[in-house]
């Protein structure tokens, strides 16, 4: 059978869009199959209620007007896990979300759609900690640096601006005796502005099209809806928050070498034996999420970028060879949340303003890095998500069930009743810090199939995760550090949520480099099959947000694919 494309990429998220664009730049013909909707494209004017067309290959199809209609800034409309536009489910909101079993309850907070989970992400792009890569990964940190630099320039990554909440965080951290980092390669504890991919007002940037597209009125307006879907900009490719649908996808469209089909769930990777008897990928079977129609497609190379849960699920559902690390080794930074509530007088003293206004400014514009423990990330957003993150999720039950004793916080557990209302009355004077733990890889954690239950896309995934005692200690240390910063800044009341380990946000490392793939990210047991999403990360990076490292690796993987299979022979 003739090939349809040079390369098929499964998934148009944080990794898939990157590998696709880089391969298009090299002149290869690339097909991207994306399970979810495409927001901001004329071919899908009503992406959640009408099937629209089959594919888009043209930059001219992008439409900021449609994006503005789709992204409403409204939390339930955008972020409901059941029926929100950013959910793990089909574009058609009349249909239920795709099912996953999470042992011990819980949920995975991922998005289907062109852009993947960068649709709701906060735009943060720190590098991994060098100490979590060197002598740990099968490649060195130095090998990543040129790719980090390339991605940082394209996105582009810059230091986030400060408004009241960042000023207060820096005030507390500095007063507590910590110093500010001025490096991207972090080896010691300290705080810094978030390295993020949110265009600042007036920041000069070379948009796709090399001079064809000059815009004046673009950049972040600090209105605080990163998590609800940024649509601020004169065009899709100049939207302030640099989800991959705003940069890598438009860049790829401009090459003329790409076709992107949203609403296509890949249900099988096709393989055959080559002349040497080695297994190799030859294509995929994809299913239209509106009609249920399946299509078989062939290419020289297949890249899996379906995400940390779906990539191993697809491997297993395709009956690809057994490997003790497929689906195994899941880490998720076992999040926690510490919230400080301030009185006006303390705020006046610290920042000269009576309010923090957590809904204003970028959602996560400052951070504290602590190699060996993990990360503190300042967080603020609109009130529904804010209340659930700070007060609704706890492994310790309700606040009244816990004695905090000499711990540095005042309450631990979920806050409900009159106390919840009282704390939310102080929403304007609340500072929240989210914790990412440097959690350890454990082969028992990960993704398997439920062999008793299928949905339309195959056996459904079961997700398991247990934290280790070491993880627990690191996380407690981070909660203490966060509390000390808040208290030093003047917080009157501090609440530690102590999240259950079953809320999955930074999912990583279920198809680890060196164990499931070789150091080039090509599967060890299936030639011409590559992996380019968070699943291929070797570990939790020490705590930093995973997107940049995944994108750096995906850029490197595109080079590897081209050099091995397409470069003219010398």
């Amino acid at each position: 059978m003739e090939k349809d494309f040079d390369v098929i990429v499964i998934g148009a998220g944080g990794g898939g869009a990157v590998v696709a664009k880089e391969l298009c730049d090299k002149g290869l013909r690339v097909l991207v199959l994306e399970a979810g909707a495409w927001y901001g494209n004329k071919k899908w004017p009503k992406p959640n209620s009408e099937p629209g067309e089959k594919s888009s290959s043209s930059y001219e199809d992008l439409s900021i007007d449609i994006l503005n209609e789709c992204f409403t800034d409204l939390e339930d409309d955008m972020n409901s896990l059941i029926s929100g536009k950013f959910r793990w489910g089909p574009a058609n909101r009349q249909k239920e979300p795709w099912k996953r079993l999470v042992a011990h309850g819980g949920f995975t907070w991922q998005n289907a759609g062109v852009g993947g989970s960068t649709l709701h992400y906060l735009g943060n792009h720190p590098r991994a900690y060098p100490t979590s890569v060197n002598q740990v990964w099968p490649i060195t940190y130095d090998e990543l640096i040129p790719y980090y630099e390339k991605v940082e320039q394209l996105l582009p990554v810059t230091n986030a601006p400060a408004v009241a909440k960042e000023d207060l965080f820096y005030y507390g951290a500095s007063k507590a005796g910590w110093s500010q980092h001025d490096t991207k390669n972090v080896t010691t504890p300290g705080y810094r502005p978030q390295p993020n991919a949110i265009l600042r007002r007036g920041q000069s940037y070379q948009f796709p099209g090399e001079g064809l597209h000059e815009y004046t009125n673009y950049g972040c307006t600090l209105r605080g809806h990163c998590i609800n879907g940024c649509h601020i900009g004169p065009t899709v490719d100049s939207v302030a928050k640099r989800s991959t649908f705003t940069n890598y996808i438009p860049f790829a469209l401009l090459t003329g070498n790409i076709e992107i089909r949203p609403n296509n769930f890949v249900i099988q990777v096709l393989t055959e034996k080559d002349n040497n008897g080695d297994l190799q990928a030859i294509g995929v079977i994809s299913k239209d999420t509106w009609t249920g129609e399946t299509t078989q497609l062939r290419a020289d190379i297949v890249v899996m970028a379906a995400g940390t849960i779906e990539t191993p699920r697809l491997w297993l559902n395709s009956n690809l060879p057994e490997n003790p690390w497929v689906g195994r080794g899941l880490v998720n930074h076992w999040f926690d949340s510490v919230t400080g509530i301030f009185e006006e007088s303390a705020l006046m003293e610290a920042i000269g303003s009576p309010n923090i206004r957590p809904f204003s400014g970028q959602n996560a514009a400052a951070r504290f890095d602590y190699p060996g423990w993990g990360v503190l990330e300042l967080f603020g957003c609109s009130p529904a998500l804010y209340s659930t993150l700070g007060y609704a999720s706890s492994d310790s039950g309700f606040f009244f069930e816990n004695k905090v004793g000499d711990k540095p916080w005042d309450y631990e557990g979920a806050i409900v009743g009159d106390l919840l209302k009282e704390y939310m009355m102080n929403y304007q004077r609340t500072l929240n810090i989210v914790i990412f733990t440097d959690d350890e890889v454990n082969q028992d954690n990960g993704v398997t199939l439920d062999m008793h239950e299928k949905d339309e896309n195959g056996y459904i995934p079961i997700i398991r995760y247990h934290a280790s005692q070491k993880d627990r200690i690191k996380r407690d240390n981070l909660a203490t550090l966060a509390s000390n910063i808040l208290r030093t800044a003047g917080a009157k009341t501090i609440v530690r949520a102590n999240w259950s380990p079953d809320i999955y946000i930074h999912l990583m490392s279920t198809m680890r480099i060196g164990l499931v793939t070789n150091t080039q990210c090509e599967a060890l047991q299936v030639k011409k099959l590559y992996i380019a999403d968070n699943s291929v990360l070797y570990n939790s990076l020490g705590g930093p947000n995973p997107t940049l490292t995944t994108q750096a690796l995906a850029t490197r993987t595109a080079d590897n694919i081209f050099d091995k299979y397409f470069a003219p022979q010398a």
Partner: protein
Amino acid sequence: MESGNNNQDMLEEYTLKQTKATLSAFVDAIIPRSEELAKEYGEIQYFGALDLLVDEYLYITLNEYQPDLAEATVEMLNAAAQRLVSRVENKKPLNLSEGGLFASLAPSDRLLAIALLKKYQYSSSHLLYPYENIFYNVVDNLIRLTMIGYYSEWFGYGTTRLLQPNNRVLEFYPLSWNQIDYPGPTPPRQLAMIES
């Protein structure tokens, strides 16, 4: 399904007294009406989840795609209440009614029943049922949904709040935003005119 009013139909079925009473009792325990707060901070702080119809939000969200999930939740909450009462761990007298045992508990005792449910949900198949095979962390999800229902825009969909998500339009900003001094998205979202 195209008419987008099946939530409306579902809600009409929602006349089962016990289902309504139990979900109402749940959201009322999480976000109560507060006379004390009203006295201290102004009348607007009196209002709670019942005033913003968050029991309806919980009902339609639970039943959106899996019919009977709301009823299953109610059964579970009642099982938890039964366990609390049989251990004589309720602190206040019951106010028995047709609404079922959970709804008969004082709000503070409902929280104790929920805490009990959370503690035992993984070790007691009786309390876990029928959640064994679905993707909810029962208790935390119910609490999260209650807060999302209350502090998100949902109540502001007004007369369209029970329609399918694609067909809802914002008619006003919810009262909960006034309670917490949240101005809403800036610039303000355009509000729909209510057809008379």
